[in-house]
């Protein structure tokens, strides 16, 4: 019963080996190299597809993002808003609670703010209205977050579908009220609310804050630091990590899993509510069904790319907003359409995510054949 040994060919040229001990600076070097490489690839594609000079395109993008003080402020505002939503989804994601309902939670927060401004703007004193705006928008966001958490904790419903569907409900509610409150009956547009009195507006005097973004940025900066410490050093942050890793271990350690799920989603929703409030009461002073503008979903990417570290999220949200603003500029200056910018953004993000592979693994070349004994 002799078996014929099958020829399996030569030893492969490359094989992959797991890294275990990459120094911190080296991993960042790989990430930076990935961004540079992606820009080179993008340049090739720009030349091939559009025939434009890639350096000009990049210059235009930079100009579009940070070309003037106004643009820098707008960029920072964009970063702050995206970051705020990313901060909101992070505790939920760390707990492995797939909250893809941030879009709806932000909208409901904005809705709460708009409602207070419209309904009480003429009847209550301004400080009271502002207080109401803050409280109601936080509560509205928290409510939208805690409903799916409640069902998850007690009946183990699927939070992904639940939070997703809550988005549609929120959009419909806002659509309905933009119709009810529309400035000219039936055109579904709410003009700037309390434009003359600024009641319910969250703002600093124009002498300090020329563009009206500073307060938003400060609030989000404080929230970022607070979230960093909350997740890393607090008891509740520890509980979130344990529940996320293993519910069994959490129960073993005496953690009340139901309570943690509900509490964390209250926080997640409340932060979304704050984002909605900053958008409506802080900058837009109006509301549309598109006020959240997809941030609820982009924020998930911001959070994951930063591996749930709030400080790194500053960088990842900056990257995404920078690309978005730059893209807008090249689409007008070069007459390229929006999707071209999306292609470039996609390539860059692909490289950044791909660089994680090279951080975790190294590729070894075949060594010289050893003489058989």
């Amino acid at each position, binding site marked *: *019963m*002799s*078996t014929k*040994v*099958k020829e*399996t*060919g*030569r*030893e*492969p040229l490359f*094989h992959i*080996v*797991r*890294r*275990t*001990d990459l120094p911190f600076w080296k991993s960042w070097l790989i990430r930076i190299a990935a961004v540079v490489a992606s820009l080179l690839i993008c340049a090739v594609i720009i030349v091939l597809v559009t025939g434009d000079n890639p350096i000009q395109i990049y210059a235009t993008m930079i100009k579009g993002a940070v070309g003037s003080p106004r643009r820098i402020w707008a960029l920072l505002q964009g970063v702050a808003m995206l970051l705020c939503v990313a901060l909101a989804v992070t505790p939920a994601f760390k707990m492995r609670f797939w909250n893809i309902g941030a879009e709806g939670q932000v909208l409901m927060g904005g809705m709460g703010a708009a409602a207070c401004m419209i309904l009480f703007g003429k009847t209550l004193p301004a400080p009271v209205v502002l207080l109401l705006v803050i409280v109601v928008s936080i509560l509205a966001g928290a409510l939208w977050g805690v409903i799916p958490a409640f069902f998850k904790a007690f009946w183990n419903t699927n939070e992904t579908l639940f939070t997703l569907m809550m988005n549609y409900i929120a959009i419909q509610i806002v659509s309905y009220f933009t119709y009810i409150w529309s400035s000219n009956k039936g055109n579904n547009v709410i003009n700037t609310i309390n434009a003359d009195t600024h009641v319910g507006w969250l703002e600093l005097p124009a002498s300090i804050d020329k563009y009206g973004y500073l307060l938003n940025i400060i609030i989000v900066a404080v929230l970022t630091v607070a979230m960093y*410490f909350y997740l890393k*050093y*607090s*008891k*509740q942050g*520890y*509980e979130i*990590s*344990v529940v996320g*890793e*293993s519910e*069994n*271990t959490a*129960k*073993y*350690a*005496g*953690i*009340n899993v139901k309570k943690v799920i509900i509490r964390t989603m209250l926080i997640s929703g409340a932060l979304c509510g704050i984002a909605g409030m900053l958008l409506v009461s802080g900058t837009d002073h109006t509301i549309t069904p598109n006020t959240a503008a997809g941030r609820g979903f982009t924020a998930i990417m911001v959070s994951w790319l930063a591996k749930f570290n709030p400080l790194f999220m500053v960088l990842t949200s900056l990257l995404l907003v920078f690309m978005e603003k730059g893209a807008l500029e090249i689409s007008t200056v070069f007459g390229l359409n929006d999707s071209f910018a999306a292609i470039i953004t996609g390539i860059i993000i692909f490289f950044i995510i791909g660089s994680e592979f090279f951080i975790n693994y190294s590729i*070894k070349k075949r*060594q010289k054949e*050893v003489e*058989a*004994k």
Partner: protein
Amino acid sequence: MDNKTPAISMRNITKAFGSKVVANKNVSMDIERGEILALLGENGSGKTTLMNMLSGIYRQDSGQIFVDGTEVHITCPKDAYELGIGMIHQHFKLVDVLTATENVALGMQKKTTGPNREIAKAITEICDKYGFDIDPKMKVYNMTVSQKQTLEIVKTLYRGANILILDEPTAVLTPQETEKLFAVLRNMKADGKSIIIITHKLNEVLAISDRVSILRKGEYIGTVQTSEATVQSLTEMMVGQKVELDIERPDIENKELRLSIENLTCLDRYGVKALDDVSFDVYGGEILGIAGISGSGQKQLLEAIAGLQKAESGSSIKYYAPGEKKESQLVGKNVSEIKRMGVALSFVPEDRLGMGLVGAMGMADNMMLRSYQKGGVIFTDRKTPRNLATKIKDDLEVVTPNISTPVRKLSGGNVQKVLVGREIASDPTVLMAAYAVRGLDINTSYTIYHLLNEQKKKGTAVIYVGEDLDVLIALCDRIAILCGGKLNGVVDGRTATKEEVGLLMTNIEAGRKEAEA
């Protein structure tokens, strides 16, 4: 057939993970045709890594593999199959919702296998030939662990394996099932197949193998004829020094009632009685062993005491603090309530990484599982757990790059040291340990026995759920035997025999007779 050429020969195999961990270093060894070779080594000595290279899961960094004298390059499991090498892993790779036949058919080309009934026929033939017992139509989720393992072996044989690698096949089997497996292995050997068996149990090595190869810290130490080996000699080759193989059993001092369990009844998650009206006492200063076939209610018993498992009405678990006559009822309380009552209960669960520890966290953060509530109102105290982690790392010689390395990256023995170390550190009055030495090498096992004995001397009530009867009889003062969720007797560890305990584990009538006598 040329009998001189080994079935497999490995020459100078080296495999490293990263730059620090060398799993195998210059290993050269042979496997003959028609022999059973036992591969022996402590945890982390590189046995599984070496076998994974034969079965195509890893690729060696350097070195050569010869099958029947021809050099081969195994780059994926498919290559291994084509060379007739099949591995049965510790964790079965079966699809639960499919039948035995469908699982065998998975991954095969239909044109080579023919329809499922052909496969079913082939399975029956294989079973008849070697003495397996398996129903081709049975769904995998209905199978016992032993049946799943049989299916894995049949699957491998069906694919034409001549060389079978079994990674700790007996770790999950009862003594009877192990005997059955060994009978089958002997039949396969008689048929000319080569079998490599990885195991920690030395008495099994002596019972089944023809030769034993030993690895230590990734290096090949040597191969001996089983007929010339003893438990002592193998242990010394494995550990590299002389080892005391007697388990100590200090005399009981200051025995006092700690737990009084009365009429404890628990349901499992399907609503079936997992524990049925169990009553016994646990004393401080003694080690109480719990014996039983796996799934006889051991898990529910420990979890009920720990406050993780709901007990049915009429159940009672009374706790008596050391030196106090006051009793407190544990039934109906959850983990944190029991903790707040001041009951210093420690629990080393069976599922180490899925329950006792958080795999993604380092040692320091895992220490916090028990203590994170301490510290300020909002922020937790991180310094004490970090110090404790360093202390445990030093005292128990935990091998880890540092205390923030995720514990799931550590070897099984080190994971268990981290867990036991933490549970003991809280000065428990009751210490429960489930299968505390499962999968651990002999050195680590003795460290664990020693730690349990230390606790016993301190007056802790130690409850030890075990599967190895030799150890239970050597270590425990009393042994309570569970059989199908019922308590089938409590015997004295100093006088009980293995046969007596084994009989009580399987036969509920035996327990009744003993009670009457």
